[in-house]
């Protein structure tokens, strides 16, 4: 029986395993050094916040794996011998495979600052990171203040986590507003205000110079680059993004750049070895997508795709319209299609914001053809299926604005804002004729 080995039990690896099992009888082994069972990485924060216990993070009960004949192995793969198709484990022992799927995910991205190795300097990616946070920031007596470096989705999650235990948070961001490399200015500014309203000391245009440890090697303070200010703290969260977790592949002959290089069939340069998820770098970017996409959904889609290929039904990875979502403290965010903060030359934006400063939308459209390109929505839930359809149909922006109600996904009895948005669109934009 063909033996398929998957390195990594995150969403990519587990999706691949589940789908291969659905379509075949192959022997499947999933290896992870991180946890015994698959868990939802995006929910790690809720364990620290006390919303959930560790067990709640597991999407499948523990009997599921045996019942579906998915063998789980807890080990760290330290070496891959591609010519003999053998994996060697750090703990000792080895395993052979017929086909290998690498789904090793991401690791915290750092910039080589001084003092990075101090105790209490950590990222927020793995289960082990969460244990570290619990150790260094259990409460506001042990950790009166934490400093977060870099403003992205992990940074705001960490800020929200720490604030639930009344720990003061200083949040250093390089940019003018939170995440404004991705979000258009109006949105980034609104989210920045919201983060500050939760008691976070948000420092814009501020970089880290170095981290200072005390005699025991534990972080004591940081110094900012711009003003040289020393901010004392007991924990430093590194939130400057993630990078593919591929150091264990050194010397294996598997071709890498920043990530594992794959073609559209998710094949690496070596036969019978595939790679999916965060650790992957597309040889050529797909549409407007970045070559490396560390997103839950893309990991899952790659898992769905590679499973088909391995079950004798070869498919290229060809993701549909871009979508994503997040939550910034109390404000939910969803995006469908493309809305660039740094507008493309053909792109125009319509921005609407509610006066309570917790809801806004930005619609991107082609300024010449008026074709709808994408939407960011904050504080108003919208339907994935409807926007996916409108994007495929190349609908015009005024069609989208006129029919926005069809896309609403807020709970029953919620106030609707479509009329308000429609009026604002009519008033503020001379361009598209309605």
């Amino acid at each position, binding site marked *: 029986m063909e033996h398929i080995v998957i390195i990594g039990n995150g969403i990519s690896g587990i999706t691949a395993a589940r789908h291969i099992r659905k379509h075949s009888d192959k022997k499947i082994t999933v290896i992870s050094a991180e946890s015994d069972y698959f868990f939802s990485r995006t*929910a790690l924060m809720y364990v620290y916040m006390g919303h959930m216990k560790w067990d709640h993070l597991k999407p499948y009960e523990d009997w599921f794996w045996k019942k579906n004949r998915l063998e789980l192995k807890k080990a760290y793969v330290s070496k891959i011998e591609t010519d003999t198709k053998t994996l060697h484990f750090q703990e000792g022992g080895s395993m052979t495979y017929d086909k290998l799927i690498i789904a090793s995910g991401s690791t915290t991205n750092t910039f080589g600052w001084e003092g990075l190795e101090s105790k209490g300097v950590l990222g927020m990616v793995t289960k082990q990171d969460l244990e570290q946070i619990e150790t260094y920031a259990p409460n506001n007596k042990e950790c009166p203040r934490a400093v977060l470096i870099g403003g992205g989705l992990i940074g705001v999650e960490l800020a929200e986590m720490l604030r639930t235990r009344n720990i003061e948070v200083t949040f250093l961001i390089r940019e003018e507003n939170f995440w404004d490399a991705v979000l258009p200015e109006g949105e980034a500014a609104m989210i920045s205000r919201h983060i500050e309203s939760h008691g976070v000391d948000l420092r814009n245009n501020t970089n880290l110079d170095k981290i200072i440890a005390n005699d025991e090697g534990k972080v004591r303070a940081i110094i900012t680059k711009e003003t040289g200010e020393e901010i004392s703290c007991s924990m430093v969260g590194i939130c400057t993004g993630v990078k593919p977790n591929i150091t264990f592949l050194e010397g294996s002959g598997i071709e890498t750049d920043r990530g594992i290089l794959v073609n559209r069939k998710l094949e690496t340069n070596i036969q019978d070895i595939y790679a999916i998820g965060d650790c992957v770098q597309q040889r050529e970017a797909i549409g407007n997508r970045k070559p490396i996409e560390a997103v839950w959904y893309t990991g899952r889609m790659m898992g769905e795709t590679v499973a088909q290929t391995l079950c004798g039904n070869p498919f290229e990875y060809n993701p549909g319209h871009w979508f994503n979502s997040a939550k910034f403290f109390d404000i939910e965010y969803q995006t469908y299609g493309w809305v660039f903060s740094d507008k493309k030359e053909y792109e125009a934006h319509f921005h609407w914001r509610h006066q309570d400063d917790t809801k806004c939308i930005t619609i991107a459209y082609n300024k010449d053809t008026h074709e709808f390109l994408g939407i960011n929505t904050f504080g108003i*839930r919208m339907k994935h299926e409807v926007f996916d359809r409108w994007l495929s149909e190349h609908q015009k922006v005024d069609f989208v604005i006129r029919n926005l109600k069809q896309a609403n*996904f807020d709970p029953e009895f919620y106030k609707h804002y479509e009329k308000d948005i429609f009026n604002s669109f009519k008033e503020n934009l001379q361009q598209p004729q309605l």
Partner: protein
Amino acid sequence: MSKIEHNMSMTGDAPASVSTTQKIASALGLLGLFILLLALTNVDFPNKTLFLSLSLGLIAAGTIVFANDAYRGKHAGIKNDGVWLKAFTNRGLSAWVIGIGLTLFYIVLYWFPEYLGLNSEGGNTGVISLFDPLSKLINGNPASQWFVYGTLYTLAILVFGYKFILKYRHNNYEILRTFSVMFFQLGFAFLIPEILIRLNQPYFNPANLWPLNYDLFAGYKIDEFFSSGTLGLMMFAFGILSIFVISPILTYKYGKRWYCSWVCGCGGLAETAGDPYRHLSDKSQFAWKVERWVIHSVLVFVVVMTIAVVYSFLGDDSKDTWLTQDVFLWGAAGFLTLVFALIMIFKRQELAKDAKYGAIGYFVIITAIIGMNYFSGNNQIFFFQGYQLRSWYGFLIGAAFSGVIGVGFYPIFGNRVWCRFGCPMAAVLGMQQRLFSKFRITTNGGQCISCGNCSTYCEMGIDVRAYAQKGENIVRSSCVGCGICSAVCPRGVLKLENGSQDGRINSEEVLLGNDVDLMDFLNQK
């Protein structure tokens, strides 16, 4: 694994969860309870009206001040911080103290009301006598233990309803739903029946439907209805209409939520006072299996019991009335056969294997009992007299299950144990909801991140995530439509909706967002 479990779920430090204002508020509320406790020990208060008002007022004020301090002036949004880190909400010492306290209260209430001050001869003493002024004001009679219970129950729904509304003030569905349960409890469950008593009419709560209200067709109740003129007949007719006509129509249009989380008193208490315990329900597949067998067995029990009770009430002389024992028995058997046949003919493919076995098994049991009774001709169903069956049902299900376990164990098993495992009304509505309703919870394309908030906070123990992460609608007979899964979802994936039957039960192999060719290839297979 055990290390992280220990670290993160039990000893993680909750933020200072109780502020000074909240401590003072708790003290006020406890002072109100203390007055009740003093009354229980037969302290004879000089002015009962004053002290009763003081007691209830302090309990209400304490809860309101507490809720204001906890939620007002803070951001509107999900407030689950530290839920699993606090003893009170994670089965710690305080949870056990409350659980045992509530359980003891129910035991005394059901079986030893004399300890509360109910005397078979002479006036009330103890805590019941404290409620005499209020009882006389509303229904004209001295209080009973049930009046005391009803008053405290209603008070709990009102003040904890206020707290719930503040907690979910960003969510109009939750606000409206909570106003609704507060209204039905205060008006329909508490005031109307008491006022009816004052007017010398039968005690009748229009919102308490058979089979939850298992006594509705008991002989003494029917006598009451028929001896109370037009109003009594209207009540009786409404009781029959509401289970056979009104509730199926409403459940078809809105799902069982119209009753379970908008009207019902048990649901009302669970959603308000029980809200801090909603996450304690068991989500395992095993618990779901147990749930299906237990709740449907209770339903069979109540059906057999009611048939037996009505049967023994009816005469067997066809000169008095067309509705003789035989007519009734064959009518009931015919009706059950019809329901069984319709489900098996039209909805067979939607039933799981064990549901089919269960349905057939229960059907055989009920018809066998009816047949046995008819042919043996000794007026005994299941070898017991109807009244005996009823008293067993009242003891086991009505008191022990719904009260002692259902509410007493809130802090240990969660707030919907009775509704999930025991309530025959929920079983009836659940069948309708699963098989003949427009209600479903829809999921939003491919947006689910499997975080598990929905499953964790589902009071009915439904593993909502298992459906959401497959992009599948949630169509479950136990769902009471409280809307909390949708509220706690951080990615806007879940929505409670009433829509067409087409595509209500769906399952897609690959979620929206992937290659359209792949989706077509797999989903249309």
